[in-house]
Each structure stands twice: as C-alpha cells, then as structure tokens.
C-alpha cells in the first residue's frame, strides 16, 4: 500500500492558525479539532491510524507545512505497530516537515512498536525557517514484552535555513548490539525529543538514563532509554522539564 497525506496550516489576517490543506490517505487519517474548541490561535489535528499499518511493502508519506507565524499541534491517538506483512522489502514511512519563519509545530505521535520479523525504515526531515520552533517526539519500543524485535532503521534530520542542527540514525541491530552497554544497554524503549524552541538549556542536564543536551548549532534534544515504555516516558518528561521553557513544554496545553 502506498499513501501520501498532506497537511498545511497558515496564519490568517486575524492571526488565527487555519488548516489550508488537509488530505488524508488511509491509513494516515487526519482529524482536525474544531477551531471553536481550540480558540483559533493554534490548529490541532489528530493523526489516526485507520488501518493496520505499516505492513511489509507499505510506503507511507506525510507532508506537513506550517506557514509563517502559524501554530500546529499534530498529535497521535494510538501506538503504531510495525508488522511484517506478506510483501517483501519491509515497510517505509517518511514525514517531511517545513516550518516557515516564526511558525510552530508540535508533532507528538504515540510510540512505534517494532514486532517480530518486521522490517521498518522511518525517516523524519524537518526544515525550519528563521525563528521557527518545533518539537518532535519519537518513542520506539523494540518488541512487545518478551518479543524479539525485527529490524529497524530510523533517521532524523533537522535543518534551519540549510544549516544542520541534528542528524541521527538509530539501527538497534541484532541482540548483541542491543545488549551492549556501549550501544543500547539492553534498553527495550528508546525515546527522543528534539526541541528547537527559542531558548536552549545553557548546559546539559542529566539523570540516570536520561539527558537534555544543547546542540552545537542551536536547539536541544531530550532523550531517555528504559526497559519499558512507562519508565521511558517518565524519564523523557523529566528531561523535557529541564528545558528553560520546560513548564510550557510539559503541560498538555492545547
């Protein structure tokens, strides 16, 4: 199955953020919340998986554009299960984001669970304009409880006006690599949240198996690893709270 969904949000003459383009493509179903419920200053859209996906052979694309000064919260509703399916070649999902000058995107999907024999490739590419803000959360669960996960390769690229802020690829590889203290230290859950959010933490903040670090060219990343999703989320939340705007970022404010 091939699917390409599109979402575009712009700022209108009153300064309200309005959805200009919304094209769902099953299984990527986009459900906007009525402006009356959100106050209009920001658009809120829920991303709903309307079919079992991704399966082997699936190619899912999501393209998001946030116009100058507009605000979008795109939130996931349920966890995504990456499954093997009947087609060869594995599954692929890509999310391409553009945030124009002064725009804000919060992309908060639920976790992705990599099941046995799944072969999943995921890519997130974000291009930011001047003063654009974004946070994108990624929580990867390597196998359900007691399950040996399939293969995964997930890449994140964040650039601002062409300058690279963050590029990283996670390939948890085989059991040996996952178990190594020099790689994943037997963590089953890996959580990451790049935050390009105006101010950055002046110095790294860290605790046991979590950290919030300022990046070299601006922006920061909160990250955590854990044996289970609940602990990973708690550690990630602790890291996010260390951000100068941590109180705002920690609130489920929309």
């Amino acid at each position, binding site marked *: 199955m091939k699917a390409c969904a599109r979402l575009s949000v712009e700022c209108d003459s009153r300064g309200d953020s309005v959805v200009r383009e919304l094209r769902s493509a099953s299984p990527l179903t986009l459900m906007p919340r009525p402006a009356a419920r959100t106050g209009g200053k920001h658009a809120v859209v829920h991303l709903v998986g309307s079919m079992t996906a991704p399966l082997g052979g699936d190619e899912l694309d999501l393209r998001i554009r946030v116009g100058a000064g507009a605000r979008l919260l795109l939130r996931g509703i349920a966890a995504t299960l990456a499954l093997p399916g009947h087609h060869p070649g594995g599954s692929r999902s890509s999310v391409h984001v553009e945030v124009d000058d002064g725009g804000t995107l919060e992309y908060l999907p639920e976790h992705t669970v990599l099941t046995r024999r799944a072969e999943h490739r995921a890519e997130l590419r974000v291009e930011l304009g001047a003063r654009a803000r974004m946070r994108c959360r990624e929580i990867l669960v390597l196998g359900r409880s007691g399950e040996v996960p399939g293969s995964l390769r997930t890449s994140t690229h964040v650039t601002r006006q062409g300058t690279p802020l*963050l590029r*990283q690829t996670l390939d948890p590889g085989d059991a040996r690599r996952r178990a190594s203290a020099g790689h994943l*230290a037997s963590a089953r859950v890996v959580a990451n949240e790049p935050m390009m959010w105006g101010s950055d933490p002046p110095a*790294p903040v860290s605790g046991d198996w979590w950290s919030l670090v300022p*990046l070299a060219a601006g922006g920061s990343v909160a990250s955590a690893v854990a044996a289970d999703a609940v602990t990973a989320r708690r550690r990630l939340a602790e890291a996010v709270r260390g951000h100068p705007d941590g109180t705002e970022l920690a609130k489920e404010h929309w």
Partner: protein
Amino acid sequence: MTTSGRLAMLALADARFPGGGHVHSGGLEEATHRGVVTRPEELREFLFGRLHGTGELAAVFAAAATHSAAGGAGRQYWLRFDAELDARTPSPAQRDASRAQGRGTARAGRVAWPSSALDELLAATARPHHATVLGVLLGGSGNGTPRDAAAVAAYLALSGSASAAVRLLGLDPFAANAAVTELGPELDRVAERAADTVGDDPADLPAPSAPALDLLAEAHQRHHREEVRLFAS
C-alpha cells in the same frame, strides 16, 4: 603503500602518539561505576557496541576527510564538514572529548606531517573533531587511503576504552588487549563500509548513533563535576 605511509598510520594508532587520547575512557569509566562492565567479556561487548555507533561515525568522517583532503578541499568545505559532524554528535560531552583529542592530534600532526590540507582545516576551525584530523593528516600528506583512516579512527574508538579498563578495573591487560583484537573482522567491515561513502556530500554521510553511550557520556560529565574521576570522558 609507501613505508612512510605505513608508519604514519601506525604512529597515529599508537597509544604513545602525543595527541592526548590517554585521558579519555569513551564512556567506560561511567560504565564501570554502574557495574555494567566488570569482566573482560563485558569489556568486549561494550567495545562491540561502541564500534557500531561512535566508532562507525568516526570511521565514516575520517574516511571522508582523507578523500577530501587529498582532493584539495578548502576552508568553506571544512566548515560545512565540521557542522555536519557536530549535528551527528548531540552529546556536548562527546563533542568536547572529540575536539580536545582533535586539537591535540593536530598539534602533534602538524609537526610530523605538515600539509596545505591541514592548514586549510585549521583555518576553518582551531579545534577540529578528532576523526577529521586523522583523515586530513593521512589524506593531506598522501600517507594513507580513506580505508586506512577509517580503520585508525575505529581502532582508536576501542583502544582508549580498553586501556582505561585496565586502569579502572585492574583487568588482566592481556585479556583487555584480546577484547580489542577479537573485534578485528568487525572493525574491517566498519572501515570498508566507511570507505564506500567517501564521495557523498557531507550532508548525506551516515549518522549512526548509540543512545545509551550518549547518556553514559553525559552522566560521566555530571559525576566529573561532583566527584573526582580518573578520565576526562
């Protein structure tokens, strides 16, 4: 390869090369404090994971730097190259450790193997990343191939942690050494893959990561501020 080329590669990989690598444990000190590395077998497994994240990233950038230095890359290129490696190193503790070793290696290397490529690199940044310097020293002087530089960078990602393990845990030095050499075939594969990507634009080079090692590096820095630690990273 010429005899002087072989010697340059051996000298750069030598623990006695005066580049300042001996003060870095590459996350191993923190791993020993948590009790996750206590025995030679655990050291070997730590190094295996280190090779496939941090080691591979160093190998990729060392190989690409060798290729670009031999091709006469200028200041603008090295600025972009530096920014691309920064973007792949989210942990400030690891960026600092890499630049500290890069600067030390550049100072010693400038005397041993001066080249216009090294001058171009140092004009772009006075504290280049370690992997970049290794590549420029070999490529700029015509003393090594991208694959040689990748092998040196990957080896140094392991040998520093292994010798730190001897000092921190009192491990049998023979066993610690064998933990490194057992990874020979793995290291060859990493170096070979790194050499395959040298023609790519710096923006498209691989970006392997190791989340737990990044967290150990940050925890090490935190403890370094709070209590005495033997190693800088």
